[in-house]
Structures are given as structure tokens and as C-alpha cells.
């Protein structure tokens, strides 16, 4: 079933799996509150936005690109939901997702048509999206229909809607990236863009697909965030940009592209959520938490760089 390069990529996700498992075991041993249904439900709820935005980032990274605008796209999504959900009802959902995809396509257009370095182009998109969001919603507010909340977050259970949505998104991407020609083209392009072009891959199409998908998924993450806070917030998404990169790297995705699997990213996002929960439940010093996260990040870097292909 797992054959070819897929197998090699899955191997890269094992360290993140191990880390997530270790944190789970450690916290459940030290805190009786950990394994309660309510806490597990909370964890699933927190995993949803982080997991989705990390997935968005991972897809872009597979193609050897990076998207530093995912966080501001999340903020934009919360703004659109907060302004639109009461008047437009369900129509606000597709509107939000379309806006996210459009942001991604804007980045791709700059990369393709104007040949701007993808990192810089995504920074430019981030600035513009942030500006637009602040125009729409200068300060936190608006209102998201409670109906959405009831649907997604009301039930506090491990296997509630948040976890199922997150797993479904990952499963779908796992299938598309591992078993479709487009997925193979994305990996090939990230692995060596020139070689992929010579073999008939259209770089423009890859950019459109990965940035468009990332924009859409980031908007989805923002959408759930807005439901969770029942409002919009023009700055709420920003910290997620860095977190999405951290989760992807921790999950074994190579910055140079072409390597890693979404499975690793899911485990890594879970591990990041668990670290915070562990510190709070065990009542550990909050300063230590920042240091622990830093150490995990640097540790992952060192670990993956040792096994990395590039020498220089």
C-alpha cells in the first residue's frame, strides 16, 4: 500500500508521532484531569485551527514554496464571517473560502506573472490582506451566528465534529498528495523544479494549486476560529503563521520541498497543542514553557538537518 517515495516520506513523520505519544503518556500519568472527556474534547477543539493551517503550510512547503500569509488570511476569514454570517447565513461560508482561495491565487499570480520570490510575495500578500482586514473590521467584533457554534463546538467530546473535520481534511490531502498525479507533480516540483518542468510539469499550475489550496484551507481554519470566538478579530491569525511553519518542520517536512507527509504534520500539530495543555495542567512555570517549545523546535531542526539531503 505504501510504496515508492510515499514510504520514505512517511518515515519522516515518525519522530513527531513519537513526541506526541510521549507527551500523551507523560501528561496522563502526571495529571488525572488529562484523560477526561472534557479535556480531550478541548484538545480536539484546539487542534482544529492549528491542524488546518499547518496542513495549508505543508502543502505549499511540499512544492518547495512557503506562504507567510496564512495567518492574515485566517484573520480575514474571521472578519468576513463576523460581518456576514448574520445577514448572509450559510452563504458566508463559501464567501469566506472563496476569499481565502483568492488571496492564495494573488500570491501565485505574483510568483508566476511577476516572477517575484515566493517568500517575499507571500509577505506582500500578508501585508495587503492585513490592510484589507483592518478596513473591513478595524477592531475585534461583529457577530457569528450561534447556530454555527452549536453545530461544531457545542458537544464536548473527543470524537466530536472538530476532530472529525480535522481528520477528514488530513485524510483527503493524504490521498490527493500520495495517490494522484497532481500530488506527484507537487512533490516533483518541490524536489527539483527544473527537472519537473522538463518532465512536463507546469510550474504555474503547481503554484496556483498549492497557494490556492493553502489560502482556502487557511480560510477554513479562520472560519472555525471565528465560530469558536463567535466574532471576528483582525489580528487573531497572525501568530499562526509561525506556528504553521513550526508544525510542518517538526512534522518532518523539508523546507527545500519534495519531502515529508501530512501525517507527520498532524502529529506535530497535536504535539504543540499537548505541550501547552501539559504545562497548564501540571501548573508548570509559564517561562519554562517558552523555553521547552524552543528546545523542541531546535531539536527537530537538528534532527532533520542531520538526515537531510542538502550538504551546503
Amino acid at each position: 500500500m505504501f510504496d515508492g517515495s510515499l514510504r520514505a516520506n512517511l518515515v519522516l513523520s515518525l519522530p513527531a508521532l513519537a513526541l506526541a505519544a510521549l507527551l500523551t503518556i507523560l501528561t496522563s500519568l502526571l495529571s488525572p484531569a488529562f484523560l477526561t472527556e472534557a479535556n480531550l474534547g478541548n484538545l480536539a477543539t484546539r487542534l482544529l485551527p492549528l491542524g488546518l493551517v499547518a496542513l495549508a503550510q505543508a502543502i505549499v512547503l511540499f512544492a518547495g514554496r512557503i506562504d507567510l500569509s496564512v495567518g492574515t488570511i485566517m484573520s480575514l476569514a474571521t472578519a468576513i464571517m463576523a460581518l456576514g454570517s448574520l445577514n448572509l447565513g450559510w452563504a458566508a461560508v463559501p464567501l469566506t473560502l472563496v476569499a481565502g482561495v483568492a488571496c492564495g491565487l494573488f500570491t501565485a499570480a505574483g510568483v508566476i506573472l511577476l516572477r517575484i520570490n515566493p517568500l517575499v510575495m507571500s509577505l506582500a500578500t500578508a501585508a495587503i490582506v492585513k490592510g484589507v482586514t483592518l478596513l473591513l473590521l478595524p477592531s475585534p467584533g461583529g457577530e457569528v451566528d450561534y447556530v454555527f457554534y452549536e453545530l461544531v463546538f457545542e458537544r464536548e467530546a473527543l470524537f466530536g465534529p472538530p476532530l472529525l473535520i480535522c481528520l477528514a481534511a488530513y485524510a483527503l490531502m493524504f490521498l490527493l498528495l500520495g495517490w494522484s498525479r497532481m500530488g506527484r507533480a507537487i512533490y516533483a516540483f518541490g524536489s527539483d523544479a527544473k527537472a519537473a518542468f522538463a518532465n512536463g510539469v507546469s510550474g504555474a499550475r503547481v503554484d496556483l494549486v498549492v497557494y490556492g489550496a493553502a489560502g482556502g484551507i487557511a480560510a477554513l481554519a479562520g472560519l472555525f476560529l471565528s465560530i469558536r470566538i463567535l466574532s471576528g478579530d483582525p489580528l487573531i491569525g497572525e501568530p499562526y503563521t509561525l506556528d504553521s511553519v513550526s508544525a510542518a518542520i517538526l512534522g518532518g517536512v523539508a523546507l527545500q520541498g519534495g519531502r515529508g507527509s501530512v501525517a507527520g504534520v498532524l502529529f506535530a500539530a497535536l504535539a504543540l497543542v499537548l505541550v501547552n495543555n501539559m504545562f497548564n495542567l501540571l501548573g508548570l512555570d509559564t517561562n519554562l514553557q517558552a523555553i521547552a517549545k524552543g528546545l523542541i523546535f531546535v531539536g527537530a531542526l537538528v534532527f532533520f538537518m542531520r538526515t537531510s539531503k542538502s550538504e551546503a
Partner: protein
Amino acid sequence: MSLAPFIAQLRPSAASLRALGLLVLLLALLLVSSGAFSGQQLLDNARQAAPLGIIVLAQALILMMGRLDLSVGATAGLANVVLATSFAGDMANIGTALALTLIFGLAVGLANGLLVVVLRIPAFLATLAMSLIIAGGLLVFTGGSPRGSIPASFRVVTEGWIAGVLPWSVVVWALVAGLLSVLVHFTMTGRRMLLSGANMRAARLNGIASDRMVILAFMLSSLLATLGGILLSAITGMATIGIADSYTVDSIAAAVIGGALFSGGVFLPLGAALGALILFILQSLLYVLSLPPAAKFIMQGAIIVVALALANLKKER
């Protein structure tokens, strides 16, 4: 004796000329919108842009090496806290204060260099991790509220004008740019850095101590970021956590507006200076026009897109 080779090294590049065009356009806008804008005011703007300008030089140097330094903002912020703490408001401490601040800066650069060279972590991530470590360290060390202050007499570095016509900080900025130019274009060390940046493996095989060159570049970068932080401190007179965080992204934007390439091999101090001024004047323009911050972000993004699109379209032809 022909001077041609020397002049050739210093010829302003097309990128710098484009940046100059953009700057003139912004200045014209500023003039029209504020009704009054003198050369004096331009110099005054340059005076205040000097910290960013020097940090952009740091970024441009690392971009020349084909890498990225995401810790320049954090490093400048570190300099701000260390300087204020060790000055403790007393000019008598100037020796220790400056020495300590520079040592911290060099240590950051050394650590960056070692992470990149020894542990082979991509510079992008190594310096990102470094900036997180600095931010965490400062919070732990200061408990959120740094103490100390910069004595007023030190603040002449950024407040003072030579004979009332030339600000000190502009002189410092120009001097740093000039020295870097000489380093890169006229010295063996600079050439070795350039070659190491362009192809580390080839440089090593040709007997260049390229690991050392990369470390040196990161140390220079952090040193410049520290210098930027010192100038910034002289402007503010006090310590603030995260004061220079926005400088990281701004330095990248300014450097690429000024013609720096991600693929490395290019060093344009003039372009870098113009890039810094463009961002600064843009900000001024927004203040004067009383535009909301939303406009600032949109214009910043748009300027980056336009500047790079112009550069790339030129290249096509």
C-alpha cells in the same frame, strides 16, 4: 593608470536607479500633500531612518551570501535592552555599556553562524529560532519590564547635527555603508565571502575557509543589527521589549526593493539605503495624509510587488 576597474565596481546598478525613482515619486507625493518639504526635512527623515538603514545593510549582506537573517530585529532589540541596562542612565558607564552590547551582538552572530555551519540548519530557520530564543531570554531576564535608561548626552548620536547641517546618525550610516562596500568590492575577505555565499562547496574545494566566511558574515550582520539597535536606543532613550521586531520584515522588504536577490551574489549598499528611506517616507506620508494603518499595510505590500515586478520585467528584456 586606468581607474576603470575601480569605477566599474561602484557603478550604480539599475536596481538602485529604480529605487531612486520610487523614492523621488514618494517625496513628490509628500511635498504635494504636506505643502512644505525641505532638504533639511529629508535629512531629518534620513536621521530617523538610520537605525533601519543600518539593519537593512545587515540583511543585504546576508542576502548576498544567499541566505536570510530573521534575527536582525530581535538582535537590535537585545542591544536596546542590554545598552539601557548597562548604561543605567549614567554617561560614566559608556565604556562598559557599549562593550557589553557589542559582545552580546557578536555572540548572537557567532551562534547563528555555528548553527548554520556546524549543525547545517538552514539560515532561515536557525535565525528564526535565534530570534525566539532572544525574545524568550529577554522576557525571562527583564520579567517584562526592562530597567535602565540611556543618558541624554549619549543621545547626541541620533539627535545631534554636525554644524547644524548634517545629522550624526546619517554620517554613521553612510560610513557603515561605505566600509561594507569597501569590504565586499575591494578586499580579499569580501571576495571570499561572496564566493562562499554563491557556492559554498566550490569555495571550500578551492581552498577558501568558507565555513569561517559564513560565520564572519553572520557576525557582521548581528554586529550591524546591534549598531542599529544602539542608534535606536539613542533615539528612544529607554529600553522597550520587542522594540525592533518589525525591523526584520522591513529589512527584507527594503533590501529587495533596493535590488538584493534571494539567490545571492549581489550587494548594493546604495539600493539598501534607498529601500530603507522608501519605507520610512512611506510611513511619513501616511502620517501626514492621516490614513488609517490599514492603508499602510496595503501600500507596503503594493510597493514590494511593484518594485520587484519592475525589476523582473526589466530583466526579461
